[in-house]
């Protein structure tokens, strides 16, 4: 009996020691993404880009092998995200937490990052405050005010729009976008003639669009989450006979993503959107990225979720090179501060103070190029920082 217990004890000790020994040669990244549910496609795109990056750059950095542990948050579920982050740290002994499409999940996991002192890379979750919740956090995607405050100011100045109507989805990012656009627009002399928030699950937009049309505003600003809603909303715009030459339609880039443009058809022509990445962006780096992505994933184009994941992996690799493979959170954050690079989206950097992304914001218009409807860049604003955190100080 005693020998049996001895054997068990010895093997348990061995088990306990094993991860420690492995950690010497490997860096483990815990990915928390909504692989299933309403936001499953965002996870597909991001994970595909992460896999592509590893394929292109190898799975060894600074002598360390990069390993992934993937966890499904199943959608907007902060409690689940927190539990998964804890499991990743305690049981799987990951060194880095990454992924995070949805803000509530990122906020919940931030607590774990603080307590366990783990480097955390937010590859999407775009609410401004996210990066303030953990000193070990860096973001490689975008912030909603970064896009929409810039866009609001652009619309009132270069866009020559005086009176706009705003319609957004009734959830935190929608409120963020509404506030940011209105702030930018009003500060530049524009006037908001009406605003509406529609519910998150809204199959039919006709009533809201009709109301916006009846307001006789010169422009309608729209924010909807990606997925089925942009197409549904675009359809309603087309049906209501909104002529983009007379009533300008403005929105964050999801509104005219690939699937939405197909569903809208020519009705999408002339819609103006603001975004930080589109597969149509013209640069050698982006052409190579899109080509590789197309080749790997059956001709599918990368989107903002993909680019967030791709640049997130770039940042992790470069930071590890600087720390010589050390996964210490302080060291990795230190290495990330002020990091500058040329991404497929254009030049970007990490703000040394806020650890948030600094990048070029593009204004695009849907145009027909060679028979295809594309988001064509018509203007850009360089080196945009998150305006909300700039005001906090």
């Amino acid at each position: 009996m005693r020998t049996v217990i001895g054997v068990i004890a010895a093997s348990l000790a061995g088990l306990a020691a094993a991860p420690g020994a492995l950690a010497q040669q490997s860096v483990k990244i815990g990915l928390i993404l909504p692989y299933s549910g309403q936001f499953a496609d965002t996870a597909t795109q991001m994970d595909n880009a992460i896999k592509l990056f590893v394929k292109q750059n190898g799975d060894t950095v600074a002598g360390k092998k990069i390993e992934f542990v993937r966890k499904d948050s199943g959608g907007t579920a902060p409690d689940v995200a927190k539990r998964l982050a804890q499991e990743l740290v305690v049981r799987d002994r990951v060194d880095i937490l990454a992924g995070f499409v949805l803000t509530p999940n990122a906020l919940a996991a931030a607590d774990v990052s603080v307590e366990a002192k783990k480097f955390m890379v937010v590859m999407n979750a775009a609410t401004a405050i996210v990066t303030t919740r953990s000193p070990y956090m860096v973001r490689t995607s975008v912030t909603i005010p970064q896009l929409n405050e810039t866009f609001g100011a652009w619309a009132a100045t270069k866009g020559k729009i005086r009176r706009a109507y705003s319609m957004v989805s009734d959830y935190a990012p929608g409120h963020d976008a509404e506030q940011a656009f209105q702030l930018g627009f009003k500060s530049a002399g524009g006037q908001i003639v009406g605003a509406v928030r529609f519910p998150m699950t809204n199959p039919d937009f006709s009533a809201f669009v009709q109301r916006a049309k009846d307001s006789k505003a010169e422009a309608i600003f729209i924010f909807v989450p990606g997925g089925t809603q942009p197409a549904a909303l675009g359809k309603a715009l087309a049906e209501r006979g909104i002529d983009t030459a007379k009533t300008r339609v403005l929105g964050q880039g999801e509104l005219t993503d690939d699937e939405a443009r197909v569903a809208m058809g020519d009705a999408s022509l002339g819609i103006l959107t603001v975004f930080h990445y589109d597969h149509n962006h013209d640069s050698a780096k982006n052409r190579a990225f899109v080509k590789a992505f197309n080749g790997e994933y059956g001709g599918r184009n990368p989107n903002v979720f993909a680019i967030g994941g791709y640049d997130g992996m770039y940042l992790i690799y470069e930071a590890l090179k600087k720390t010589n493979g050390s996964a210490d959170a302080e060291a990795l954050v230190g290495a990330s501060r002020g990091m500058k690079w040329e991404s497929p989206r254009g030049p970007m950097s990490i703000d040394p103070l806020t650890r948030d992304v600094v990048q070029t914001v593009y204004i695009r218009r849907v145009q027909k190029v060679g028979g295809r409807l594309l988001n064509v860049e018509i203007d850009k604003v360089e080196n945009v920082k998150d305006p909300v955190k700039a005001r906090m100080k």
Partner: protein
Amino acid sequence: MLGSLAGIVFDGFAYGMLLFLLSVGLSVTLGMMNFINLAHCSFGMLGGYVAVTLIDGLGWGFLQTLPAAFTAALVLGAVLERLLFRRSFRATDLEQCLITIGVVFMSVAAAAWIWGTVQRPMQLPVWLTGALEVKGVNFAAYRIFLVAVALAVALVLVACLEWTRFGAQVRAAVDNPRAARGLGIDVDRTFSITFALGAGLAGLGGALAVPIVGLEPSFALAYLVYVLIVVSVGGLASIGGSFAAAALLGISDVAGKYYVPQLGSFLIYLVMVGLLVWRPGGLFGKR
């Protein structure tokens, strides 16, 4: 003002017809056979995917895909009825809920596996895209089409159930299975056909809904609530009830969103609660 009111009533009615097309199959399975089929929208989703795949992959026209969507869902419905659901026809409500919701989750995962998680847009033929403007009121072509299809489906279905031999058998089998068996009606077969028909109608409704609501694997869950509301407000065992309920809910939803957008889509639930308090059995409920 009056012009916009007419537009809103039309939009609401068309939206209601969309809800009717999505839920009419369920008024057959849940309403007539008393089988709580939460997997109803899974059949709708299949219809949607079949239509989109045929259009994108094989270049079929939109109209031709509709019978295909109906048939595909009908066949799958018949197979699943035989293998799975038949055992649960006489089970308790809870057991029916559990087995069908299990099928829903499996269908969501299966759709993601087969067709991917990406949103699948549907391109409509040009004649269904624009809108007709009469005296300042906007009538979208696709919405006119939806109304026409919904009316046709409702008429055909009511006619089949009321005036054909098969319809009489179904009603007999539903009202009193024992007596129906005694009269020589093959109740099991009648139920099989009815269930498959309900699934087929779901497939048709799904394909017709895609151009308005879009299509992705969460379709099977996303519209389940609306479909259940329509059937319960309409009253079980009543096609006409579902039709009236769908029209009422559609118009109140769209009007509510237009005039009191702060209430948003909450209004549809208020209307449901109000109607069910007034008539617990539904508008035209027979039981």
